[in-house]
């Protein structure tokens, strides 16, 4: 049997109460991925700030490693990431950590707005951080590139999932992709649907653990990053993120597919 030990112990999302007790026990590194000015106003106690834009300005493994080192994260550090954009930005940061070989990372189950609206504790000071040394053990099995996508065309049992909004998908998408808009992934105040709910939805769509699944979205892998975790939360073992997503695909002038002969944009009230 495949080793399930990691997936078993590390949950995709962390609930609010667990995070609060981990914070009290000082057994977690919390990352706030909002903009610096938002972070400075207030944030979850002990959280460090890593604005997504900062990470994306150069997300080569070497630089990313430096960033995480400076945030006091080594191989053993338990990490929880949160944002205020329904989990999409947090997902992108969490995925990056996973990619450089970190295993113990989860998403906070809800957004910072929700945390605040529940009247939970926050603070304005930035914690003192001691730099740590993380090793670099890349996990290429969770990354998809455009070349990889091209090679996968011929393979059976590879599912490509487009997480952009439906109208964008109808207008153009990577050939063979199916549409699962990122909005489908959340439920009420949670960034992800409950596991059973998610499994039912995927099962209806014929998305199962037998396939290799690649997610993509518009440009930098945030919405599809959230989908990456949604699929993992439903227990699907083999998920990859096409991190450069549709923007790169289009720039490379790769083939596109569209829904022809219908003026669907005119149904939108935007």
């Amino acid at each position, binding site marked *: 049997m495949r080793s399930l030990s990691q997936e078993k112990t590390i949950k995709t999302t962390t609930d609010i109460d667990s995070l609060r007790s981990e914070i009290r026990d000082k057994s977690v590194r919390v990352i706030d991925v909002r903009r610096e000015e938002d972070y400075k106003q207030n944030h979850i106690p002990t959280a460090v700030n890593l604005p997504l834009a900062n990470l994306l300005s150069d997300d080569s493994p070497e630089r990313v490693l430096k960033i995480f080192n400076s945030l006091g994260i080594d191989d053993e550090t338990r990490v929880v990431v949160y944002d205020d*954009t329904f989990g999409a930005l947090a997902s992108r940061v969490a995925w990056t950590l996973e990619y450089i070989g970190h295993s113990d990372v989860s998403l906070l189950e*809800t957004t910072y707005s929700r945390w605040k609206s529940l009247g939970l504790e926050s603070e304005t000071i930035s914690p003192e951080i001691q730099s740590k040394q993380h090793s670099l053990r890349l996990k290429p099995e969770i990354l998809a590139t455009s070349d990889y996508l091209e090679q996968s065309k011929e393979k059976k049992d590879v599912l490509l999932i487009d997480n952009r909004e*439906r109208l964008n998908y109808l207008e153009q998408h990577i050939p063979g992709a199916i549409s699962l808009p990122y909005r489908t992934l959340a439920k009420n105040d949670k960034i992800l649907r409950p596991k059973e709910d998610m499994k039912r939805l995927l099962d*209806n769509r014929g998305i199962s653990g037998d396939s290799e699944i690649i997610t993509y979205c518009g440009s930098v892998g945030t919405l599809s990053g959230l989908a990456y975790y949604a699929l993992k939360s439903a227990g699907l073992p083999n998920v990859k993120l096409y991190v450069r997503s549709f923007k790169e695909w289009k720039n490379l002038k790769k083939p596109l597919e569209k829904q022809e002969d*219908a*003026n669907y944009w005119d*149904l*939108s*009230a*935007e």
Partner: protein
Amino acid sequence: MTVSDLKQPHSDSVRPTINWARVEEAVDFAKTVKLYRQGKYDDDSFRRYRLQHGAYGTRMTSDYAMVRIKLPAGEIYPQQLEKIAQLSEQFSIGSAHFSTRENIQLHWVVLEDVSEIFRGLAEVGLTSREACGNSVRNVMCSPLSGVCPGEEFDATPYALATAKFFLRNPMAQSLPRKFKFNFTCCEKHGMVRMVDVGLIPQIKEIDGTAQKGFKIFLGGGLGNRSFVGHQLEEFTPEEDLIYTSIAVLRIFDRLGDRKNLARNRMRYLVNDMGWDAFQNLVFKERALVRATQSVVTQLDVDFTPSEIKRPIRVTDESGNPNPDGYARWLKTNTEKQKQPGYRSAFITLEAGDITANQLSALGEIVSDYSSEGKARVGFNQNIALRYVSEDDLPRLYSRLLEVGLAKSGSLTMTAPIGCSGTTSCNLALTNSHRLAKEIQRKFLELRLDEDDDLRDSTIKISGCPNSCGQHGIATIGFFGGGGRVGKEMYPNYQMLLGGRSDGETMLGLTCTRIPAKRVIPAILKIIELFKKYKKPNDTLKEWIHRIVNEKEDSEIKSILDLRKIMDQLAVPPTKEDDPDFYSDYGSDTSYHTKTGKGECAA
């Protein structure tokens, strides 16, 4: 980007009183789609099943469906608005569409996700069951029933009871074709003579006591061929409502044409038999039904009145008491109710479309401003908030303004109806949907909504001859088709004039063909001619009515006279001179007609 998923519902909003949903239908639908995809269900059976559950096909693809959510009697509650907002973001295009028959449609839904929508709807008591297919479709009721100064009594409880009686009723599961009930408030607000069964509430003095009942019209309907309904009898007492409904349905079920799908609505049966024969048959059948139905077969009419309670708002009560545009909006979007101190406020949508954000905001606005705590969907791809205290109107307007829902003109000619057309429908030949939006934008820019002479006129557009856009009952109606110059095609519309759906219901008469890109100038030309020839206190509707009935005495005496003038607008330019003429709205490529198979007759 929005946060509607992460929002908490209003705690004190009024809850729905009727649960139309059955969650097991969601489970069954998911299972059936799987079987169908595995080839264990043939196309025809699956299509029938899908339509029976309210999922319609989509233009040029079998991967997507349109889910038509029924709002019986047009009632919708805040939590239902919020839920539909969420569902449209999750499974549709982030916008929802209000239809002309008090349904809300979610388009471009992946077939495999339809069951998830059913689940979501079940959480708030809504269903799409029998919204399509050969069943009793959504039972409509005037959005002003209960508040209309001209009505004799409120038909809403009867509309809801009729909907309850027929939903999932075995007698209505496999009719020859679809079957529609419309209840209204009064003659003026109409829509009862162009439907299978139309009902106007009426009170009659019988032996010194006031007896409630209805004026019932049968055999009307719009479509490829349209007919005006016939009044069954002088007065149908309320206890006969159910017997009459069952009798008519049984006759249709027995005699309706099950072979010729193109002409099997009940109106064709009435037409073929002749009204007198049909009427006699209804009387006989009704006597039979009355004598043989068990005593438990009756309408479950709930007369509990809605609680009218001015909402307590925690939101900001300050602000400008006379915001910009308020007077115009008040005039063109609100109606005085028979209850003193209250108005009904109609929301102007563009061809019935609304974003998820707006729907969600509307849920809150209904809670905050309607003293009955719910809203009513209208006959014209719109929605009304009723029991708005007159003092609250300026603040309501400001709130609507914030979410882009304060456009004026809802109750005027500047709010045209446009069916979905080539945006999603398999049968459409033109983008009628976008044309309706273009007309609205232009006419609001010209402030035509403020012109009292135009107020009671209507513009209605269908993308093909099948009348979903109700072109036959419009003052100025259009239905789409293709025009041709040599090898080149261009989008074209047949223009009809003088249709109406009130006490003097008649179908519009064909005037001439107008190319899509000339429709706006054509309507403006008609208005210009009207202004030139109108009599004092004349309205456009009355002027056109006189012309089509050849009772006008000015220079334009008949529809032929008008046609001569309008035909000048219809001359196609060469493609070199005006390439835009040869493409439809919403498209930059040359126009060509392309249609798939319709499902109305499935």
